[in-house]
């Protein structure tokens, strides 16, 4: 009470605003610290990837206008998502509010009861006597009386706490801080510093596919789905571009020409070949070829019908028409960014386990075997690092993980992050760690030998699995801009771990010349040697453009149409010997 009296003469509103000085100091400190944060590359450089992305978004925005009911559908979807988010928010707010109110109610209740008791004692009840005017026993207090004593003590403590000026002031300051922090975050959320929300990305990816496909084309690869269901598949499920898959680790996210991948990816993981895409599941009355490889195979930077597998299908069908060989040749594009020989084998095995068994398999490798040199999928280190945290978070052992994520997602934090150097997908993996690598590091003979041995052993395992399933194989060694290439590189030269190919490829060639990789190996690594005038790349000498893809598809086609084993495979399938279940 005395403590309250000490403050009685200061107007409450002045005290309230005086308390604000603390949050103001905190916020000003935050601003000051952000100003002295080393802002490396505050203006992120626009890369070719960004340009490609922006071009695609622009194209998508223009095309959106041509869809009559798009806005309505987008509105409904956004509403649905917002409701879901709101439900969660509401739940938390309601629980917190209920808790606060119940506490206030409880304290008030206790206060009233206590006041009532004192009043009664001082007015109608004599001291030392109970309500019925009977003397209280001092020697043997009843259990109720003992409890009441303890309760009185607790209550007096709560009352002291309640009336303490220090606590009151501290609480007001704290609440002001919270309020100001929320307001600052709300303010920042309107400044445009907030990064794209996951749900926005999903919406952006919607409906872009119609530019390249008819619904008829998609019915062929989704025979069990209704048109509405197919339309749903046009949306990237999370908008991240990659999804986690057991064993192979990551795969290109399914969706149809979304802004993230700019490619039509089937839910079973393969990229469509454009309008000539064969049906799925694989038809038994056709000769089915699966092509596995990395980003060069899936065709980063080219249209669906310009990828190596798409062009291979076109060429094989032209050279070996169905009316001559008795069957249509179908080629399926199972390339995936970051994949190299080991991951491709695992995906092939996974497909076989799921009962998907092709007649012929082509593996296109080279660049990523040297780039992703550790021999494990590219994001292994990242998942290994986070896995214990995820397990702890999921089992409830580490709730703090969620609070960390909340703090990271706050608009003010995003603003602070925007002042730092931007992370890219490339820097996400140790195997994609950029430039500045010395020749001494890249030419490490032990590592080059390990990569070669790994490729040989993996080929052996793959052949064993393929033989077991009566599937013939072809292992293609792809061209790179660092080996026997003197042509133009308008987007610049290759950089980073991929430069190891400069030292690895000659070793591969030496092994190929001296010991060989078997009859099912095709050396296409030097097919760009005489291409000095035309550009073959979409970027700095890593991914092929349509012409580069054509040359590789030709290299493979020449080999296949002149190969007795391949022609025999087709005739075996025709005669039913190699028929797949």
């Amino acid at each position, binding site marked *: 009470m005395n403590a309250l009296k000490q403050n009685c003469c200061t*107007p409450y509103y002045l005290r309230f605003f005086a308390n604000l000085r603390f949050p103001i100091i905190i916020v000003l400190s935050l601003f000051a610290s952000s100003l002295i944060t080393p802002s490396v590359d505050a203006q992120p450089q626009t890369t070719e990837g960004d340009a490609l992305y922006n071009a695609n978004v622009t194209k998508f925005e223009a095309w959106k206008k041509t869809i009559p009911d798009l806005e309505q559908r987008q509105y409904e979807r956004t509403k649905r998502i917002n409701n879901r988010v709101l439900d969660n928010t509401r739940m938390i707010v309601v629980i917190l509010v209920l808790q606060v109110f119940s*506490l206030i109610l409880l304290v008030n209740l206790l206060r009233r009861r206590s006041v009532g008791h004192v009043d009664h004692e001082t007015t109608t009840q004599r001291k030392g006597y109970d309500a019925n005017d009977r003397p209280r026993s001092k020697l043997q207090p009843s259990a109720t009386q003992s409890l009441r004593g303890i309760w009185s003590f607790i209550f007096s403590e709560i009352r002291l706490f309640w009336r303490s000026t220090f606590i009151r002031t501290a*609480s007001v300051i704290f609440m002001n801080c919270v309020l100001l922090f929320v307001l600052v975050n709300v303010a920042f959320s309107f400044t445009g510093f907030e990064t794209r929300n996951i749900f926005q990305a999903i919406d952006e990816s919607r409906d872009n596919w119609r530019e390249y496909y008819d619904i008829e084309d998609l019915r062929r690869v989704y025979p069990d789905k209704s048109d509405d269901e197919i339309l749903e598949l046009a949306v990237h499920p999370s908008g991240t571009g990659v999804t986690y898959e057991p*064993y192979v680790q990551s795969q290109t996210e399914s969706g149809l020409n979304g802004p993230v991948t700019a490619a039509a990816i089937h839910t079973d993981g393969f990229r469509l070949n454009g309008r000539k895409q064969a049906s799925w599941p694989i038809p038994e009355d056709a000769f089915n070829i699966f092509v596995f490889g990395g980003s060069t195979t899936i065709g980063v930077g080219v249209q669906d019908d310009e990828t190596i597998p798409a062009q291979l299908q076109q060429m094989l069908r032209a050279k070996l028409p169905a009316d001559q060989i008795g069957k249509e040749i179908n080629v399926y594009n199972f390339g995936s960014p970051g994949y190299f020989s080991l991951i491709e084998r695992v995906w092939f095995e996974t497909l076989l386990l799921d009962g998907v068994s092709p007649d012929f398999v082509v593996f296109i490798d080279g660049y990523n075997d040297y780039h992703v040199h550790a021999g494990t*999928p590219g994001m292994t280190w990242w*998942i290994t690092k986070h896995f214990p945290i995820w397990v702890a978070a*999921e089992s409830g052992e580490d709730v703090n993980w969620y609070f960390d994520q909340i703090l990271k997602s706050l608009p003010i934090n995003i603003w602070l992050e925007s002042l730092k150097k931007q992370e890219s997908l490339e820097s996400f993996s140790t195997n994609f760690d950029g430039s500045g690598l010395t020749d001494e590091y890249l030419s490490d003979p032990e590592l080059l030998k390990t990569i070669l041995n790994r490729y040989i052993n993996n080929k052996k395992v793959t052949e064993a699995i393929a033989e077991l399933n009566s599937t013939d194989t072809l292992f293609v060694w792809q061209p790179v801009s660092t080996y026997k290439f003197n042509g133009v590189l308008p987007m610049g030269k290759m950089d980073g771990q991929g430069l190891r190919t400069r030292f690895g490829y000659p070793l591969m060639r030496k092994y190929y010349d001296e010991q060989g990789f078997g009859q099912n190996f095709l050396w296409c690594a030097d097919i760009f040697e005489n291409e000095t005038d035309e550009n073959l790349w979409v970027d700095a000498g890593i991914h092929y453009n349509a012409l580069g893809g054509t040359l590789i598809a030709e290299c493979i086609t020449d080999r296949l149409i002149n190969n007795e084993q391949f022609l025999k495979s087709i005739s075996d399938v025709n005669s039913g010997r190699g028929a797949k279940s």
Partner: protein
Amino acid sequence: MKNSFAKLGSLCIAVVAALLVFILANYLVAAISALVTSTGNDTVKYAPIEPNIIQPLYPDLTGGALKQKLARNKGQGISYRGYVETQNEPGFTGRYLVHDQGFRVNPGNIGTWPPAEDALTIFVFGGNATLGPNLSDNSTIPSALREIIVQQSSDLPVYVYNFASYGHISTQQRLFFETLLISGYIPDIALFFGINEDLKLIGGEPYFNELITKHFRNQALLWQKLPISYLAAEAFQKLPLVQAVKNGISRQEPSVTNVPLKPSPDITDDKITRVVDRYIENTKSIKAVAKKFNVVSAFIMMPIPEPANSAIHKDVLSKLNTYDVFQSSSWIDCTNSRTLFDQSITKMYRDDGLLTARAALEIALCSYENLRMDFPDLSALN
């Protein structure tokens, strides 16, 4: 005005007090849970491992670095591994040591890494019962098997590497084996203990797949952020107080790998057929690959926990017998091993799904007896 601010002050106190009470209550519940957890008894005594003993497994390490290998790991029992998804967490678990390559070290049979060429090298793959987290280093199936082989038949050094890991289904065992072969670690014999994990994880996806998929998706959003409300709701669900309200305060296992895999609740005939098909496909692939690398492979059928799954047991066996591959010598049926060796065993599995030491020995005996029928002199396989 004065009154309003007084009320505002009271409201602030109430909110702060509510928050404090909530935080304290959470800490209290977490402390009680920890207290209840720590009362669990561990009856098996684990002898400390001397750093110099493990030197052959870490040829590049000495002194302090070796001691570091024996330091306690994070205690979750499991870590991520490319291709296989999960493996035993490297380091000392408090009970046993796990090598960086994922095998459980048996201090009584250290061997070398990479495996020596002049020794009989056996790689063992399987699930938690084969790993034997409840058993001492010399009582697990692989350790017992090694003892039997040494006693019975071989003058050659025999090293058995226990690559069994929590929840490993046949697909993971196969990929683990292939990964080791591709890395140049080639054994003389590879043994695969099944099929219980496959029957528990009936969808054919690894045990931690759902967890990794969820968090991968959430955290892989490099240029997007999850809504704060989603994260707050998730955090709220995981708070000790909320968990206690939902599930009650129960004894929590210190590591996720101590949670026994539960049999799938909705096992249908169709699903069993799919599991068996997948198992057969993996078995055939392992045999084909092993043959390419001149490795002898064998597949041991572990006893299936009873009585809950006895019907499934019969069903699985009858289905397996319809496949040609299981008429071959590489399939070893130890589902009834106790009737072969020791009628007195009444319970092969403990309540937590792990084997007793006696049962592990019985299965090791069963495996050995069957292997010897096809390879009377195992050392000749080297």
